[in-house]
């Protein structure tokens, strides 16, 4: 069974990035190598416009399950854009042991 809408079958190998919370997406980023982050970024970034155009046919309150997963996957693209575009490492530089947790976020 596919996790994402059929139009986005090319992103199925990265469907495990479709995580519903910012904390989980950030956790997966920290557990990944730069090669893994770049592979996901390179596959998803060119598909961003197509994905948001596809999702616009549904209201935010009426996203089907595979549409929700597609949105989470692109939220994860936002999360991995920092290491890929600027940091060159999964962690935020100069952040040491500090951590900050999302305690409330809107459900998708």
């Amino acid at each position, binding site marked *: 069974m596919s996790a994402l809408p059929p139009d986005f079958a090319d992103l199925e190998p990265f469907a495990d990035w479709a995580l519903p919370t910012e904390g989980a997406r950030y956790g997966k980023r920290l557990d990944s190598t730069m090669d893994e982050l770049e592979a996901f970024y390179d596959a998803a970034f060119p598909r961003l416009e197509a994905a948001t155009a596809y999702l616009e046919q549904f209201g935010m309150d009426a996203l089907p399950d595979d549409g929700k997963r597609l949105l989470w996957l692109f939220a994860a693209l936002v999360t991995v854009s920092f290491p890929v575009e600027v940091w060159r490492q999964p962690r935020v530089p100069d952040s040491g042991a*500090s951590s900050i947790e999302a305690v409330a976020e809107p459900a998708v």
Partner: protein
Amino acid sequence: MPHFTKPAEGSWTEHYGIDTGPVSYEDSISPEHYELERDAIFRRTWLNVGRVEQVPRNGSYFTRELDAARTSVVVVRDMQGDVRAFHNICRHRGNKLVWNDDPREEVSGTCRQFTCKYHGWRYGLDGALTFVQQESEFFDLDKADFGLAPVRCEVWEGFVFVNLDDQDSTPVADYMGELGRGIAGYPFHEMTQVHRYRAEIGSNWKLFIDAFAEFYHAPVLHAKQSVADESRKLQGVGFEALAYDIDGPHSMVSSWGGMSPPKDLGMVKPIERKLRSGLFGPWDAPDIGIDELPPGLNPARHPAWGIDSFVFFPNFMLLVWKPNWYLTYHYWPTSYNTHIFEGTLYFVPPKNAYERLQQELAVVTFKEYALQDGNTLEATQTMLESRAVTEFPLNDQEVLLRHLHTTARRYVREHQERQKSTTPVRISAAS
């Protein structure tokens, strides 16, 4: 040569009559001073504990741990629709009244009444004691005498405040002063899409306010957040605010914000170009139903305006951004060198997935910055505590820091003077 006009005195600091000498951070590294602050500041000022959207219906409630003020409060919307607050303590034997698994953890929910886990005493949402288990076993117990202990609670522009000082009759709207009046009417209620972050920070609470009350650090500490050319340019220019204002214990800094949208798309990262969003928020501002900003926002009426940051004493910061969203910071002390930081981002609810991702990028960018700031603070606290150096020069762009520390020390001094004048002289039995 300043880019933006300074007051006639030549500096903001002198304009507001604030001392320009080196400062001591003893007020941030002394356990004894912190103990004084708890009573002098946190039990004597209006504290923002949340928003009215957190108690949307009659019976909605949330709790707040106010360690610095030595209590826990429960905030509830009662059956008449009024927002009230009570000390979170059962009148029978002092058990904490509202909590789930872990009594130290804050909770929220909806209920028709509060029931104590210990012996089943029940209270209405107006605080009245309504049920006592085995009431006939008690001695002349009149339930009317054992309602929940109320805490003064008022709402300003949808922000819920409590004040533990029963002697002070100043309404919260007056306490917020000229700066509060200047932003009244801003449609905060339109921005109900909430992302809240929380972090345990290893520094005095004032030091994190210091970090967010000046932007002098931004081009340097966060240099790597920008593309390389832009980063070099920012460091070369440095930072100057459009305006500062100080009123009573509160203060504000108004800043430019050329990044929403940037003049040159080459200044920003690929994801920002694609999503038209970044640190300053989504570039496409949603309609919030006002033609003009309240007079207290962008007070210089500068076209390059980007953000206003208000420091409402003691521990509430409110940041209003040009593209119609806002951010709050709260700093809840847990000891002289630790506190809990909360950063909450408020947006107009997104109409579609693209807008949701624009907001996600602003949220995650905030988080990446906060991680760098949080880490720096722990290092600062440790070194200040070494007392290897005890005096520090602050520049004119750090005027809000001087004001915050001066104000906090004044509250402590006045508290000590009040105590001296009211403490009765003890006469020992031997004399």
